[in-house]
């Protein structure tokens, strides 16, 4: 089954005729991800690698029944693209675009909530259900299908994790990247709930970082979950008050430090680690127990 996307999804790329869009289209076709349409206003009637391009999301939904969108337009255009997708009925959106103004993110997140849409990002590395559907910049050849769910703010950090667990023969059911910006849509809580209901997922890995309260809020969901949750929060050693790459990776209050989050997650029942090495060892140990 996997969560969010699978082999039954009908994928749309908004911004398909740009460089990034074309690259994604090419990869999706190679990976056999169900790409059905692209949208670039003014470029309707074109085809990219055999995929029809439309002028509007409404047309793509009407003609090709697209139900999930990957947005790869330049940052300042992301807000409009998201509004258009939601208004056209799309309820699952991955905003890969970065450089999205904070006020735009605020409006995106609020509009998504109003309409019950799941919007990842902005600045999200994507969502992938290995072997079924790839809406991310992760290389299909590098990630193994399996039964561990992963939810992470950072894309690059998730690479280390799925690579690390593959050494124990473990694979991924679905990997969701929430994005590195200050204000993002889909939350840890949202995705944990989905994994808990997913028959293809046995346990979950949560990869957090400093800044914000997403991980701490997720603790409440973890408390009521039956499935095992492993957690790592990056930035235990990050100096306070400095931005660590991601706009969202900056400690606002003491409750937003990695240590505090790890403590909160541990109290909620998660198996926690404070380095990547420890996390992989933890997961490996659990896997070899069975």
């Amino acid at each position, binding site marked *: 089954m996997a969560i969010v996307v699978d082999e039954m999804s009908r994928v749309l790329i908004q911004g398909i005729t740009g460089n990034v869009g074309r*690259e994604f289209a090419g*990869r999706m076709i190679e990976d056999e991800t169900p790409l059905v349409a692209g949208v670039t206003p003014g470029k309707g009637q074109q085809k990219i690698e055999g995929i029809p391009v439309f002028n509007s999301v409404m047309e793509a939904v009407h003609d090709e029944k697209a139900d999930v969108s990957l947005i790869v337009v330049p*940052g300042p255009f992301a807000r409009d693209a998201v509004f258009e997708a939601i208004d056209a009925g799309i309820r699952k959106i991955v905003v890969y675009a*970065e*450089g*999205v*103004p*904070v*006020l735009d*993110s*605020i*409006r995106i*997140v*609020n*509009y998504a909530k109003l309409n019950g849409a799941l919007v990842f990002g902005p600045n999200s590395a994507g969502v992938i259900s290995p072997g079924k559907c790839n809406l991310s*910049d*992760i*290389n299909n050849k*590098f990630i193994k299908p399996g039964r561990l769910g992963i939810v*992470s*703010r*950072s*894309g*690059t*950090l*998730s*690479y*280390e994790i799925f*690579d690390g667990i593959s050494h124990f023969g473990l694979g991924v059911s679905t990997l969701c990247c929430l994005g*590195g910006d*200050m*204000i993002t849509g889909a939350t840890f809580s949202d995705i944990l709930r989905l994994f808990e209901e997913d028959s293809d997922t046995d346990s979950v890995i949560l*990869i957090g*970082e*400093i800044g*914000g*309260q997403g991980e701490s809020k997720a603790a409440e969901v973890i408390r009521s979950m039956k499935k095992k949750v492993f957690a*790592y929060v*990056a*930035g*235990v*050693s*990050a*100096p306070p008050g*400095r*931005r*660590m*790459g*991601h*706009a*969202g*990776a900056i400690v*606002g209050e003491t409750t937003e430090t*990695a240590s505090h989050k790890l403590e909160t997650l541990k109290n909620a029942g998660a198996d926690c680690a*404070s*380095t*990547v*090495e420890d996390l992989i060892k933890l997961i490996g140990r659990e896997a070899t127990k069975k």
Partner: protein
Amino acid sequence: MQLYECEGKQLFQQYGIPVPKGVVISSKESALDSTSFPVVVKPQVLVGGRGKAGGIRFADNIDDLQRSVRELMDSSIKGVIIQRLLIEEKARPTKEIYLSMATDRNSAGSLIMASPIGGVDIEEVKESIITVHVNPFLGLQPYMTRGLVSSLKLEKKTADQLSGLIQKMYKLYSEMDALLVEINPLAVLNDGSLLALDSKVSIDDYCVARHPQLKEMGRPSTSFGERLAELGITGTELDGEIAIVASGAGCLMATLDQIVRYGGMARACVDLGGTIFNMETFPKTIHACLEAIRDLRPSVILLNAFFQLADCQAFAKAVIDSMRNASREVPTVVRLKGRFDDQVGRILSQGTMVSHTTSFTDACRMVVEKARRTS
């Protein structure tokens, strides 16, 4: 991007928010004769707590003023050199309040905050803060302002002015793409009018390019951060020995955590971010980045990249080229994983003082070991 107090006040003036009459000087020799006393002398630095650090001075006459200027200009406060001073007419408030507008990540919205206790560190009087949420689709509505103003219990004339000021502040906040606009204190004068005695404005970095007038404003105070920002790279300077350069923010923090676990300390933390996606400009970018890092004189540099799509060979070539043209030789450990990573060793062996591995933990161990040996 944080604006200096005088720059924020310039924006306030543009939007009709009253500020004290003042001038900005940037040298000890600046002419001061047309000043009317008493005045307050304020260093223009982007660190907080100027007052507590003895940075804010008052002057009743020209001699006092000249002495303050001589003492403050070019001196440093909290590690930052004072290059500009704002000299303003001293106000005589009967009351000081706190007023700010900021984006709030917790509620994914904007907040207006006010407190009847202004002029102090707002963290210390948290319980006195009145907060109003501004829905991003409605914007500032009259009932929101009414609620806030009435809870401050001001006289009618002041309350009316405050309502107007809040609207002007919201206009500035929205039009200038601000993430924070803070007035602390907002003074209530004898005649009931308002005056913004301080200004703290932060603009969304992604929107700075939209506003031409911001071009010359808010330079970051460390040259390391500035040099990297010009390349589209974020980095921070620390005081350890190992400079960490990573291909993503999460990767950067995880590398820092691992290095600290092995007993090392970071000299710099740099996230290459999206620059790696443009292979045409990348060699130039990575060289400029590594040069800025070499100028910090770290004992060793760790480059950690795990690429899903990019060809590792191109990255390795760019790194070797940079090392060949380096202004200073610094031992470097390269961890590269991704397509064609098995070809990287061959490329990097062309250089001296460079070690290589595809393993994340091995790279961290190697670099801590190297740093220990060099010290």
